């Protein structure tokens, strides 16, 4: 791939990095990344990946922008309220970097569309807000052999790890979704807006590390932080032989409908 002079200038700070250089930037430009959810996590992930020049960005989200989103979902602006999140995201991505090809899916990620959507991408980013969908992303990626970044935030805390085929998955640590309402989501318990940025930028960095083969990914490690203390901690966890999807005797061999209602607060 030959970069145009304006692209050399645009990506100069990447190209200067010894670990990235022109070759790494080419890998980024050839990369195809799917971001599931254009919300708190998806917003910073998409903005940074667009700025970085990821060749193709897929965005899937069935929601429209709500006023209560703007406290943290920094890809959406006040005039976007009421607009499909994928459209609002596409506009900002294109404004930041017109070279990025954007595929939008104005729908939710379900067992019916999961494989069909992820198959075209090199790396998947979980920016969703409910456990059933997080488990669905895990299951689709494990069964489909796709790498992904898991992310979760709540109140002042965040948690993330990266999965590559053959490394520990979400179900290795957490077998199944918690019962409905046993663990609050952000829409119930709240979240400090900047936490979404803290965790989302970690996920974006992992994506760029993956695309360029740089450094050591967060595989077999769960990174957690608490912004109240600003303590960051990485816990090693390994593939669990009893994991129901990637263990020695897997019982999950296909995708199932999520067991928990989406975004409980909205339905109250």
């Amino acid at each position: 791939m030959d970069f145009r002079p304006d692209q050399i200038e645009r990506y100069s700070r990447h190209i200067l990095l010894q670990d990235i250089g022109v070759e790494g930037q080419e890998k980024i430009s050839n990369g195809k990344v799917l971001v599931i959810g254009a919300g708190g996590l998806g917003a910073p992930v998409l903005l940074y990946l667009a700025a970085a020049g990821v060749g193709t960005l897929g965005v899937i989200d069935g929601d429209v922008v709500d006023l209560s989103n703007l406290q943290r979902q920094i890809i959406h602006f006040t005039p976007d309220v009421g607009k499909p999140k994928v459209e609002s995201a596409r506009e900002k991505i294109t404004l930041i970097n017109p070279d990025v090809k954007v595929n939008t899916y104005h729908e939710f990620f379900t067992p019916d569309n999961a494989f069909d959507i992820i198959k075209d991408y090199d790396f998947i980013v979980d920016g969703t807000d409910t456990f059933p969908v997080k488990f669905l992303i895990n299951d689709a990626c494990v069964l489909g052999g796709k790498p992904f970044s898991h992310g979760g935030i709540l109140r002042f805390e965040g948690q993330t790890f990266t999965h590559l085929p053959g490394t520990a998955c979400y179900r290795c640590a957490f077998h199944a979704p918690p019962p409905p309402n046993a663990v609050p989501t952000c829409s119930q318990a709240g979240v400090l807006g900047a936490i979404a940025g803290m965790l989302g930028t970690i996920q974006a960095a992992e994506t760029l590390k993956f695309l360029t083969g740089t450094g050591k990914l967060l595989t077999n490690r769960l990174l957690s932080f608490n912004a109240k203390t600003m303590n960051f901690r990485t816990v090693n966890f390994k593939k669990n032989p009893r994991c129901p999807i990637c263990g020695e005797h897997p019982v999950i061999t296909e995708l199932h409908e999520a067991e928990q209602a989406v975004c409980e607060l909205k339905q109250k």
Partner: protein
Amino acid sequence: MATIIVNGEKQEVNLPLSLTELIIRNQVEQPDMVSVQVNGDFIVRDKYDDTAISDGDEVDFLYFMGGGCC
């Protein structure tokens, strides 16, 4: 008295101590909702009572964190 490491921090505990007792001692808010590793191995929930903590054990409580956030 034994020294164990819980979530990366040293704790002095009296033995014998089961994993269930350690969970209570650490005031885990929702014991059913936590995933527990002892020395790098996940412990099945119905074995918490039978899992004895030993001197030098490293215990990690992993919590569900579900927001994304809509």
